[in-house]
């Protein structure tokens, strides 16, 4: 039995601003199936947090149930975490976020956890504009229960057992756009060059950020009839623009040339630099994004990249005018001011 990752690392491994290597952001060694796309997502989260020099203990990893929801164990060992009830991660994340708004919230969910049992929760957390990164590892099947078709499975696709998907698939990106998410992207676990900058931008975005990540299930949905297999996705994936994340401190050297590049300034001053492959592409129109997604789907393509970004949005705390100091930092007297204040409040209703 050898399942242990050595603590030795490359002697030339770089460190970030905190003096940490990316290895310091790892979690336990994955117990998911060998080749699971979710592991690649974990690795992208590790890389993104390392590159952003996020302090691991200032992150909270939230998840529900499913293979996807096991994944937070496999990144950021030093972060906080909550593995909640099936489909209920958004509620728990909301509660946590209310209690401590200073943490960075990463929600990790799957197609079952978000598009089936947790559909209502998903819809409402988008509406609430909770300041978090919500990732869905989307493989089109229920891997943990041996490969039944999920609600995100393309209509007509067959699972490994030969069962055909009879119903219309749910596109979580389209839903998120309709419900007012302010950062919506789709990516592929097998393309970290795209995924890592998207995660970095999503983590820097103040507001609700949603990334749907096509993440093949190598055990139950990697057969030729699948539209979520490595081979199928490699062949059908397309993108309208390549997004680069430019951190605040990095000096911007090259000027934007001929309208084929676009810079979007995020809240913290960092930039999302979009290199357009399709000239008509834009990230400011949610309606247009929905049309683009559906159009490519009709052509049999999987459109990936950043679909929509509203950098100046307001999030849940701003909308509700909540306290700047996190609740967990307030003292007893402030949190529970006693009967005199209660009487005052009651009197105000009389």
């Amino acid at each position, binding site marked *: 039995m050898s399942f242990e990752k050595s603590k030795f690392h490359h002697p*030339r491994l770089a460190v970030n601003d905190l003096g940490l290597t990316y290895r310091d952001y790892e979690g336990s060694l994955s117990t998911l199936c060998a080749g699971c796309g979710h*592991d690649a997502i974990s690795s992208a989260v590790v890389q993104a947090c390392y590159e952003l020099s996020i302090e691991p203990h200032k992150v909270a990893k939230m998840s529900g149930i499913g293979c996807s929801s096991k994944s937070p164990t496999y990144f950021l060992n030093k972060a906080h975490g909550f593995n909640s009830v099936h489909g209920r991660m958004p509620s728990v994340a909301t509660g946590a976020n209310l209690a401590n708004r200073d943490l960075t919230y990463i929600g990790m969910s799957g197609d079952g956890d978000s598009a089936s049992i947790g559909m209502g929760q998903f819809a409402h957390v988008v509406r609430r504009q909770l300041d978090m990164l919500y990732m869905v590892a989307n493989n089109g099947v229920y891997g943990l229960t041996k490969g039944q078709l999920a609600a995100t499975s393309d209509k007509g696709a067959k699972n490994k057992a030969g069962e055909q998907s009879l119903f219309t698939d749910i596109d979580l990106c389209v839903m998120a756009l309709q419900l007012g998410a302010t950062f919506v992207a789709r990516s592929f676990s097998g393309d970290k060059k795209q995924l890592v900058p998207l995660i970095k931008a999503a983590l820097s975005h103040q507001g609700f950020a949603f990334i749907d990540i096509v993440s093949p299930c190598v055990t139950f949905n990697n057969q030729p009839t699948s539209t979520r297999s490595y081979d199928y996705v490699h062949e059908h994936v397309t993108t309208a623009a390549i997004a680069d994340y430019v951190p605040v401190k990095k000096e911007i050297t090259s000027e934007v040339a001929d309208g084929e590049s676009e810079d979007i300034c995020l809240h913290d001053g960092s930039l999302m630099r979009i290199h357009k492959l399709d000239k008509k592409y834009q990230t400011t129109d949610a309606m247009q994004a929905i049309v683009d997604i559906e159009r490519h789907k009709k052509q049999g393509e999987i459109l990936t990249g950043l679909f929509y970004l509203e950098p100046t949005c307001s999030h849940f705390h701003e909308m509700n005018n909540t306290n700047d100091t996190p609740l967990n930092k307030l003292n007893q007297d402030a949190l529970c001011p006693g009967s005199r204040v209660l009487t005052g409040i009651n009197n105000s209703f009389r």
Partner: protein
Amino acid sequence: MKPTDTSNYQHFLKVVDCQHACPAHTPVPEYIRLIAEKRYTDAYMINWQSNVFPGILGRVCDRPCEPACRRGRVEEKPVAICRLKRVAADYKEDINRYIPTTPKQKNGKRIALIGAGPASLTVARDLLPHGYDVVLYERDDKAGGMMRSQIPAFRLPETVLDEELSYILNMGVEAHFGEEISSLKNLIDSNFDAIFIGTGAPQGRWLSIKGHDKNKGEIDTGINWLSSVTFDHTTSAPKRVVVLGGGNTAMDCCRTAKRLGAEEVTVLVRSSFEAMKASPWEKEDAQAEGIEIKPNYTPLEYVFEEDKFKGVLFERVESIYDATGNRTLKETGETLLVECDQVLVAVGQDTAFPWIERDIGLRFNKWGQPALNKATLQSTIENVFFGGDAAFGPENIISAVANGHQAAISMDLFCQNKNAETERPESGFNLISQKMGIHEWSFQSKISQDKRKNVPHIEWEQAIKELNTEVELGFDEKLALEEAHRCLNCDVHTVFTESTCIECSACEDVCPMDCINFVEVDEKQKTSTEQQIKSQLRVQEINPNQDLLVSDKLKTGHLMIKDEDVCLHCGLCAERCPTGAWDMKKLTLDNIGATIK
């Protein structure tokens, strides 16, 4: 940049750095694994097959394998390979039944070996099982060559030496001890099919500085003196001894002098302490025994007062290195007289061929060394071969053994009327999967985090009193097993199959050393594919001498590039690969002798 050629063993052998660095290509990880399984006899025989003298080399080898050990790339110190070899020798059972038998029916060819050192004895061992008549000539009364005459018994006990020499001598060598060959011409005329010259570098170098001609025995060469100690001609040392030189012979001289009663033993060397040629552990041991090493002193004069020897006059120098690393000594004018009763000069040694006539067609090069074909070790007389120090000047035991294998192959080919260069055999190779089941490999794939174990030794006070007591005790079984587990099993290779890779990046993500990369190469770009590949590596490579493993194009057109340099051979890539595109496969070579080139 072309995909790595995996149709032969070259790339794989180079990844096994210890084995590749060993002149005799000893399969180091293989025998360390056997030690870890307590299969000491098997570990010994693996060694015996390739390096012939495991017990001897387990004590006094120059250990070119250890600086090469890739464990030293990921933590402070390499695996104690040499000391593990000794473990195999110490704990083995009787191995006589495993020694190849010599056929009664001879092949009709007679071979002469001159000198009974490691090179000649290797030739004897390799050729005897093939039915050759092997006749050995040695001027000393016993076999062993420099291993006996120059290495003191406190480093290499006589019993160990005798045991390993006897395995070969008992195979049926016709040995003539105490018989010095004085004419190669006569030997050639006496109808041998081939002759091997392994006479070493028996002549110690003198320093012809002022006062040298007044020497009445106070000044001796180190190897002469060590040899006279070995053969009991010298049994004591005077009170104050100065040793000149900084190599292992100098270390042996000073430590021997201490044991023979010298009270003040000083080693003076021109170089800096760090640049001394002696192995670091020899320097450490000498210092532990209370010997002073004074670096940066060059001898000027042997000082005599009214014909009475007084000591050696030195000048302090400074080592200056130029940009290319060449050293020059800068004189400081500062002198130092070290008074002493005996000087041992250990500043080098040379080959000596006064017995080879210069008119018989055997050509020598400008350095007085025989002109040899490097691949075959054949001289300009077609049936005369050289090996060991006699061939290329002073090297070490393991190089002599490697030469012996090389020459034996050449002599065998020559005796069969084949061309020793063009018809040389090539080793076959095999890569065998080590997978036993899920998460189960036939080797210890878990990486030990242990630091290198020190070898226990006797007390230094006792050591300097007893000339023939071995200082090092060797690892006990517990230490040996812990040390063996530090080996990274570099002979179990990560073998990649392009056709089954689905590019899920699981291997790239899990690799603890960032060895695995998937890169995109555009052949139309101006920059070379090699530059493109190297600029995309996750971590810039450290050691460009270790070749990258470059795959053919994958389905998406990407390439898999593995930086072999710091791979731990932990097998996680193969463990996490869903399609078996990675496998851990052990390299086996069926003719290690033929891989020595």
